[in-house]
């Protein structure tokens, strides 16, 4: 457990929370998952309390999983349970995006919209991707 201090007093409005010595989000998808859940709730698509309950359920299932993994699992379960998204559509979209990414990856034209793709040094077969995603999404 490590502690990040402000280093002797914090400046006010000119100092951003991300300057606390710690990044708010470790990868872009964490920010998107965060923004999605909060925006849907603020837009009245679900009650925050229901999301919290799912987040607690994610935690019960896997105490040690990283926060935003538990967060995304919770969001996905809630959206499926409320019928805002259906499972087949979701899987189909994941497959589509994986193929899209695969195409980008093989023709080496431009990097996909995901900035974290740059960190992947090992080109993967799209079908293998889709499979691994299916496994984690379950």
């Amino acid at each position, binding site marked *: 457990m490590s502690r990040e201090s402000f280093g002797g007093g*914090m400046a006010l409005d000119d100092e951003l929370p991300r300057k606390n010595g710690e990044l708010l989000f470790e990868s872009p*998808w964490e920010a998107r998952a965060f*923004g999605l859940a909060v*925006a849907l709730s603020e837009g009245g698509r679900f009650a925050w309390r229901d999301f*919290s309950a799912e987040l607690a359920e994610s935690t019960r299932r896997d105490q040690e999983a990283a926060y935003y993994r538990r967060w995304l699992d919770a969001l996905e379960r809630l959206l499926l349970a409320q019928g805002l998204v259906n499972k087949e559509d979701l899987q189909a979209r994941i497959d589509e995006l994986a193929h899209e990414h695969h195409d980008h990856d093989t023709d080496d034209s431009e990097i996909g919209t995901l900035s974290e793709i740059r*960190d992947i040094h090992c080109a993967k077969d799209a079908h293998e991707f889709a499979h691994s995603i299916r496994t984690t*999404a379950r």
Partner: protein
Amino acid sequence: MTESHDHNEHEMAISLRTRALESLLIEKGLISADVIDGLIDRYENDIGPMNGAKVVAKAWLDAGYKSRLLNDGTAAIAELGFGGRQGAQMVVLENTDDIHNVVVCTLCSCYPWPVLGLPPSWYKSYAYRSRVVKEPRAVLREFGLELPASIQVKVWDSNSDVRYMVLPKPPHGVDTLSENEAARLVTRDAMIGVETLDALDARTGHR
């Protein structure tokens, strides 16, 4: 297969899942990318522990505000323009000569966003969540905070209905400062309860 390869593949899979969800929700008209961008920007730039620091400084210097804050945290925090749309009640816990309060959320890493922004990673860690309830003094010691046995340590477990924030004991001589100056002495960790400020000299900011 290396660990980092596994990690990358996992990251890629989860990032695709997130994109898939977002794109379906946009297609259905349930959300717009601009709204999500705006929210992320708000939390990255406008909401953070500087909000809580203003609340704490005002409570230190204005007895009337302090009593309103301890009676009804949600309303008193809203007086300064801070509030969440998540509907949780805010409860402010006062540290005194006899009681030291610490905040955790063992279930879902709930955190008082409107006043502290998003939680630091150690707050969300399994180690903190599981240990601080069982052995608070040992955990506080790891944060460099050794409390005398005469001080009672109370651990508060947040939930979706109630979020806690600690009102730290003020540094020595804080009453000579303005609210803005006092707010600069308040740290995020003190408002979670893993740090104290009362050993500070308010005029120099040094211990």
